[in-house]
């Protein structure tokens, strides 16, 4: 494992009832890199993230995060990661502050530490002035930002962002982008999945395209686009459709 690699995914596999949802996936993520994981619905992105985040047992292969094996030492891995899931995994009836403090306490912070971290993260996502408001009253974009802020409570070295901008207005989306870029500048390693190709193009240094449980392409956005012609004219969506086909995908 090169010294610059913070994440090493090695021949990762996951079978559900005999079906290989993830089939021999391998890639590395360098420290401080935003790495994009793209693919149509059912490609195996979320399953890969769930295994990396220790919530889904691995069928085969391994993931090394910060030198710790997800398979053998999941507790150590959990110290290093923050997860911003696709769904809004928060308590709508509680205030934004209460949500962040609660998850901070679950990360082992004392009440004072959790309060301090919560206010810092709410400031980061632009919601400090709404800290004590019930999340249920927030707009979709604000809820997404709370969802992201929760993932930052333990100052993670590796942040999983699973489609963090779904259903978000342009203002909130730009705010989330600024936050992500700020985190990268501070050295946080980020694994990013999205269906919005322009997001991946803007944020990710490298992108892996998955389909049917396998990585079918892995390169920088520019190099990927070069496969179809002039990278200044070809879009990432063009290359995505070229790689994965135009057939409709309905699987979750």
């Amino acid at each position, binding site marked *: 494992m090169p010294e610059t690699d913070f994440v090493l995914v090695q021949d990762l596999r996951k079978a559900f009832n005999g079906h290989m949802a993830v089939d021999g996936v391998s890639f590395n993520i360098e420290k401080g890199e935003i790495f994009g994981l793209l693919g149509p619905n059912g490609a195996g992105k979320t399953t890969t993230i769930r295994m990396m985040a220790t*919530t889904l047992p691995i069928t085969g292969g391994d993931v090394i995060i910060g030198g710790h094996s997800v398979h053998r030492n999941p*507790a150590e891995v959990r110290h290093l990661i923050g997860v911003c899931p696709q769904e809004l995994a*928060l308590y709508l009836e509680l205030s934004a502050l209460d949500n962040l403090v*609660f998850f901070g306490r*679950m*990360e082992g912070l*004392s009440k004072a*530490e959790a309060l301090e971290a919560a206010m810092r993260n709410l400031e980061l996502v632009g919601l400090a002035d709404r800290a004590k408001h019930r999340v249920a009253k927030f707009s979709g974009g604000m809820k997404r930002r709370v969802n992201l802020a929760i993932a930052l409570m333990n100052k993670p070295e590796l942040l999983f962002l699973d489609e963090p901008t779904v259903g978000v207005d342009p203002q909130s989306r730009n705010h989330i982008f600024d936050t992500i870029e700020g985190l990268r500048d501070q050295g946080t390693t980020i694994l990013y999945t999205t269906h919005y190709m322009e997001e991946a193009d803007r944020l990710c240094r490298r992108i892996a395209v998955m389909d049917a449980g396998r990585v079918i392409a892995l390169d920088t956005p520019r190099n990927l686009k070069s496969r179809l012609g002039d990278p200044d004219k070809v879009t990432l969506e063009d290359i995505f459709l070229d790689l994965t086909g135009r057939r409709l995908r309905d699987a979750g």
Partner: protein
Amino acid sequence: MGRSKAGVPFVIAGKELKLFIKDTQMLFFSLALPVVLIFLMVATFGAQARFHATAYVVNLDRGGRGEELVDRLSAIPELTVEVLDEATADSRLATSEIVNAIILPPGFSEAVAAGRAQIEVRRRGAGGTEGQIAVSYAAAIARELAGECLVAERVKAVLAGMGTFVPGPTVDARVSELFAGSRDNPRITVTEETVGGRPEPVVVFLPGLVTMVTLFSITLGAVGIVEERKKGTLERLMTTRLTRGEFLAGQWLGTLSKGLLQVVFLFGLAWVAFRIFTPASFAALLAFGVIAIVSVSGLGLVIAAISKTPEQANWIAVFFTMIMTVLGGSFFDVSGAKGALAVLSRLTYNFWANDGLRRIIVKGESLTSPAILTDITVLLALAAASWVVAILFFRLRGDGK
């Protein structure tokens, strides 16, 4: 960054309590609805202090004895007599509008005169408790009438033997007069002495209601864990440093706190409103309440562990609550039940909880009485068994770690 593990379950419990308090609908159903139920029950069952029944009589007799029986029956304060024709009685019996009809057959007067009183009863099933009592009254009056006729005939025979001629109607009238006098001034009298207020209905219904309500809210609280799974917060929690054991302990503590809040509120209200406790019995009640909640909260965890969706958890919770409420004697005493009911009732949480609560409230027993210690032991054993089952199911589901 400090790692303070010991308090984690309490933080989860605090969050659960906060969510409970902020959910105004849940709060209403958990606290206000039971209060409404208590008052409804007291109003419904508490007002009827004395026994009262209606006797439905069909008089097919053409002589005067049938009417006389109806008159004497009507004079009984505990009875209201409704005279029906035979067709109406049969039709009302057919639709179960009434369950019992007393038929005075044709020739009833002649039979009474011969000292062989006979009445007929048409009924549905056993005829209902009130109907059976009305029949007993009617039978007693019929026997009384037949006895009076026999006495009159004997008197006539004795007078004839003595060679004294007294007209039959005169003898009948005189004997009737003497019997009427003895009915008005009986040699045997029953005096009633009230030694205390009527049994307070709230005392009778409170334990059953409290066990039902806590069972309902705690089993429904299981939906909370299933919802955590559904909306993704459980999986998110499992990416933190939280362990499965800490999560379960926290959820359980949260359930316990909510149940305790309910019990303190309901018993506290009963104390203030009805003055049915002493400070000692109130303290014993709360302590027993905690044990009962510990027991049923284990059941909540089992429901959470076996349910895949919140809807499924809801149905399982309602099913368990209804079955246990009926079998466990929340609203009628099943302690003297025999056969299958006796066995089934003892398998429910409600049976042991109700028994303990009733012993403390009604009999004033202390927590150290052998019967209550048995209740506590069984409730704790049920809690332990539920925990084992819940943990096994959570492991099988592979929730998190």
